[in-house]
């Protein structure tokens, strides 16, 4: 139900689907006249948010530790796909395998899947390999358009392949091995990025401060964890995070760390803002303007914070930087997510099911990334340096 936009990136995405999307009907008031639309509109549900919800369903810290211990021997992935599988190789399956792992970021899963493409490729020249990778990453992106970090991860890796391979390797097989090795270390890079961000942000948390947190972000959790282990004294306000109650989950984790936590309903943000010293949010994606796409509600929190002069800090790994330039909220394809209201919704009532919103850069104070503490305008600089 998004409008056609001026943003060229989206134009490209919309072209193939445009015949389907006839000018009049798209998904006007009620596309499927069912009594409870929010229950069976599952076809459009964002895979990104679905996996996140699945992860969150089980993610507790002790479970994570167990999972990590189980994953620890790094051998299974390489054995799993390379020779044994008789059926034709599919990137999507590979990607889905990786994304199931709760401690892996989406971009890491994407890059792992692309590494598997390289491994199973029969190409003998760099050009062939690149074409194969391109089709694979296009397939991945088409598979889940709502995931910003998936496409950002794919783009980043593709860029790395084209940049380095052509220039610096004489031997194709060596190049291939090198690429696979780099891709497989990306998981490590991502974990390291999280630690770097946590370290960078420690200076900003002072004793006695109150931090408002929205959504469940692994990076933000890492930051707060490190601050707690550095014996900083602070308290955290968690928004509830309807409809998937991410805030409840975060408060669970924080309470286990012994951090004083207060839960707020999402609508109590403005009410409590005068007690808050700073706002910490994660990001699903950081766009070229320096704004962020994040869980629904971030925008209004940022607006309230801006009007009350509170700093809004975003913690995001740099591989979430995406080449998108949304001009307004409806500019991006909405990521649909089912919302359970607890009671049946009368027919004819529409439900806003989008899972995320866009927060423009002027409402953000600083971005904590593994590249350093950045002002929002740096994001476009970094992206331009990478892609031009």
């Amino acid at each position, binding site marked *: 139900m998004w409008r056609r936009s001026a943003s060229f990136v989206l134009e490209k995405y919309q072209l193939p689907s445009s015949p389907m999307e006839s000018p009049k009907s798209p998904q006007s008031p009620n596309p499927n006249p069912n009594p409870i639309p929010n229950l069976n509109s599952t076809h459009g549900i964002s895979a990104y948010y679905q996996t996140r919800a699945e992860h969150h369903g089980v993610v507790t810290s002790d479970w994570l530790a167990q999972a990590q211990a189980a994953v620890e021997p790094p051998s299974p992935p390489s054995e799993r796909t390379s020779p044994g599988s008789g059926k034709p190789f599919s990137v999507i399956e590979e990607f889905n395998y990786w994304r199931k792992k709760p401690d892996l970021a989406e971009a890491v899963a994407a890059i792992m899947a692309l590494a598997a493409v390289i491994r199973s490729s029969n190409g003998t020249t760099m050009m062939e390999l690149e074409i194969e990778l391109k089709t694979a990453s296009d397939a991945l992106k088409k598979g889940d358009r709502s995931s910003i970090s998936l496409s950002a991860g794919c783009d*980043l*890796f593709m860029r*790395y392949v084209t*940049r*380095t391979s052509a*220039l*610096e*390797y*004489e031997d194709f097989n*060596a190049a291939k091995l*090198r690429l696979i090795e*780099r*891709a497989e*270390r*990306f998981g*490590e*890079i991502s974990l*390291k990025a999280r630690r770097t961000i946590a370290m960078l942000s420690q*200076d*900003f948390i*002072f004793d006695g401060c109150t931090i408002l947190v929205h959504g469940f972000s692994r990076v933000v959790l890492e930051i707060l964890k490190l601050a707690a282990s550095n014996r900083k004294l602070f308290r955290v306000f968690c928004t509830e995070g309807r409809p998937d109650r991410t805030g409840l989950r975060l408060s669970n984790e924080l309470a286990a760390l012994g951090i004083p936590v207060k839960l707020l309903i999402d609508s109590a943000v403005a009410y409590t803002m005068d007690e808050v010293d700073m706002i910490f949010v994660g990001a699903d994606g950081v766009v070229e303007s320096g704004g962020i796409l994040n869980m629904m509600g971030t925008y209004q929190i940022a607006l309230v914070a801006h009007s009350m002069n509170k700093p809004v800090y975003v913690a995001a790994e*740099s*591989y979430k*930087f995406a080449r998108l330039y949304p001009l307004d909220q409806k500019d991006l394809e909405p990521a649909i997510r089912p919302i359970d209201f607890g009671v049946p919704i009368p027919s004819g009532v529409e439900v806003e099911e989008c899972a995320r919103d866009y927060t423009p850069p002027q409402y953000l104070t*600083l971005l904590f990334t*593994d*590249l*350093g*503490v*950045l*002002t*929002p*305008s*740096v994001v476009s*600089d*970094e*992206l331009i*340096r*990478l892609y031009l």
Partner: protein
Amino acid sequence: MPDVQALVGDFALKLKRRKVEGSHASARQTAELLRSVVSQQRLPHAGQAAVLIDAVRAVGEQLIAANPVELAVGNIIRRVLHIIREEDLSSTTTAMEGLGLSADSDDDNAGDHEDRPALSAAAVAAAARSALRAPSLHTLLEDIPESAAVPHASSSGGDSEGKSKSAADKSLKSRKLKHDVIEAINELIQDIDTCHEQISEQAVEHIHQNEVILTLGRSRTVKEFLCAAKEKKRSFRVFVAEGAPRYQGHVLAKELVTKGLQTTIITDSAVFAMISRVNMVIVGAHAIMANGGVIAPVGLNMVALAARRHAVPFVVVAGSHKLCPLYPHNPEVLLNDLRSPADLLDFDEFSDCMDFASRGGSPLLHVVNPTFDYVPPNLVSLFITDTGGHNPSYMYRLIADYYSADDLVVKRRSTS
């Protein structure tokens, strides 16, 4: 080396007693001191850069502790550390290009080079080149930069290879590194000296005919900026807010009048009343922070707010030695200098109010005389530095050029 120690102690004492004040003077003297530290430092054959860096760090720690409010001192120390890293890197890369792949391992990334499979000379060179650059999306997938993690001790472990080389070659190289660093520091000192001219060269681009400029207090950079515009036959008027409590504005007004500028003095509290007639506010700064915020003489936040209210451009002129890679959220940066109340009050008149003998040692009258204001980046329209005009959000870029990320904390690593 006792003479260097004495020099350092002397300068630290001067900083502590505020005998050296103002960012220009302290920046210049710090650079000169570091130059003599570098030139007197005896260098071993291996790991010269590490030794130099340690020496500079040791001095830096003392100087910063002597006057943490004078951010220019820390800036210059970080600049010099960056210079050493850069010179070291350029000498190793040229050596590498000359020697093919026999990776010269007396830089502090020795551990990095050893575990790398011999891929191709070009790849190694590229990695070395990127080692100093700030991390970016480019290099995210390339080698994880470990320069920060590798302890300096590793460099001495890697010199088995180096010993095979002739000693003459070595000593030549050691002299060369030192020489290059000293040369670069000389350049830095020259930059600090000429920054006023560089900045005032741009004056005519910013000041137009018949404009009204407002400034507060006295800044040498502002004075030269205005005079340069006057010399180029611009006629304009200047409002000078006097800058209580030190009234440096009076001095500035006098200087401007001798240059033939039409000048008006106003009180600080009249700034808001006059701002609607002003075309541009031009002020100096004490330090520019990494987020584009400014630490400036007290009263400037008020001027900035007034300027914002009337949409008057608020321009800050400052040499690049005032560019500080820290964020103002660091509590040590938010330190303010509190000066003597004698600037504000005559002690005779108020002595009975401030009598510590009465009321159990706490007088009713307190006097607070802070030196600095913090002006947030969103109130600043433009920075004019010796490299040109920049937006506040662009400051990070200059900082990435001038400083390396490892030096943000000057404290010496505990040598384990």
